[in-house]
């Protein structure tokens, strides 16, 4: 399948990535090459096979409903690029 630079732009926007012009055309060619190879899966008949997301049967995992302290806020904020002591700071998102 042909992968155009427009398609690369579309998935880049979904993935919150911004490729430079020369990177975009190289990426289009690389993705096309890789996806072309992946099309070999079409050679395996799977029409009556259910897709398998979990390798072992999924079961509901519950634990006792016991209150426990959360992680300390100051400790969590200490790893943030721009904290203010109470929250993570970001540019204004809602007017």
């Amino acid at each position, binding site marked *: 399948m042909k992968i155009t630079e427009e398609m690369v732009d579309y998935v*880049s926007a979904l993935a919150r990535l911004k490729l430079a012009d020369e990177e975009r055309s190289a990426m289009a060619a690389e993705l096309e090459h890789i996806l072309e190879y992946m099309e070999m899966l079409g050679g*395996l008949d799977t029409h009556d096979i*259910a897709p398998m997301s979990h390798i*072992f049967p999924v079961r509901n995992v519950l634990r006792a409903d016991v209150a426990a302290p959360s992680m300390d806020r100051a400790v969590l904020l200490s*790893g943030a*690029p721009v904290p203010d002591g109470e929250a993570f700071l970001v540019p204004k998102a809602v007017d």
Partner: protein
Amino acid sequence: MTMMSLCRLTALELAGKLCAGEVTQREAVEAASARIAATQGTLNTFITPDGPAFPAADLSASPLAGVPMAYKDNISTRGVKTTCASKILGDFQPPYDATAVERLSAAGAVSMGKLNMDEFAMGSTSETSWYGSVRNPWDTGRAAGGSSGGAAAAVAAGQVWYAIASDTGGSIRQPAAHCGVTGMKPTYGAVSRYGLIAYASSLDQLGPIARSAADCAAVLDVMMGGDPRDGTSLDIPAGKLLASLSGDLRGRRVGIPADCFGDGLDGEVSRAVLAAAEVLKGRGAQVETFALPAVRYAVPAYYIIACAEASSNLSRFDGVKYGWRAEGYGDLNDLYCATRTGGFGREVKRRILLGTFVLSAGYYDAYYKKALQVKAVIKRAFDEAFEKYDLLLTPVTPATAPRLGESLSDPLKMYLGDVYTVSVNLAGLPAASMPCGFDAQGLPIGAQLIGPALGEQAVLDGAHAFQLDTDYHRRMPEVTL
């Protein structure tokens, strides 16, 4: 004992000398530190070297207590920089330990620091690291394999006696093969993933790299078992793998999938792996060849599923909660884009884009859903194989370690190198890589033993039996400094 002769011991041998009082914990740590200091500049195995306070460990805590080891840098260690070898995590110090780290610390593991790897474990040569490539101790012009290249090279070079790494599509087994050491990926769910920074959650699993299968058994005894903080972990009893380890393979049936010995496999690798089958026969195993055609679809199915999951898992790296943030952004979306574009390396971006594509409207059924169906086919093929066999024997890699730089120019070629390892992750099975010979250039060759789900004991028995009759795992490279 001289420091260098200490470095040649297995982890269990060193533990024995610590318990007997023949070697002190300080001497063991100093031997590791000296070896790291001498070889780090050449091999680039560590991102963050660290060292313990003394006394480091209670020697009665476990059979490996007091033995210096190290963690791959995608495993969370409280207060110790954890980078995933990526610029985007910056100097991130996790506020908690991974469950595996907690358990190993309680068992007396002595950490020497954090090991280099491919960025976010995405790569097969440990060259995509923001911190520079790892070099193979057997030939420093070659790659150590990946993504756990730092872990395998550190053990091979005698810097530490064992390492904890992760395996999503071969990231423990493949570098172990390229570096001539033993690596084990347990059954999916056998070890808690809590604190392992996720690449592809349905495939990721933690495991050991060490000199011997017995060392791996001792490490897994500590790591395995259910964890309330990982809902996919399996509620299995604490391990008795080491205590039950047997070199007697009488009555064990070993299958060799003919489809793993076809086109694309190097002749020297093929001969060494088939010679390993003869050693297993000598220990009593019955060996026969059979067909496993489904494995030829494993690489494309694996890369679709792994990239899809990665594109979702890596969305959490956005310059807000931890790590590095770009400068000069405008609005919030721009902050995300600038940080992710500047913080991720090329291979990570490629896989995020590939994963985003296969999940996007219009392509989901043709790629992602199809890959999940192929996964079911592969799982069924392994289930059928294990009705006839207790173990499967395959190569780990199509060839020995590539030259540095050789793989980066052609990503698809690099992905195809994972042909023998990825099906094991898709099927959730345990598998070990064990050194089984050397090629004409003196580079190590690995053989893979695959077991049925929760068949860790069978896998380790097979590798242990092989190592009782061979000495490939005892050989050490002379690192050219």
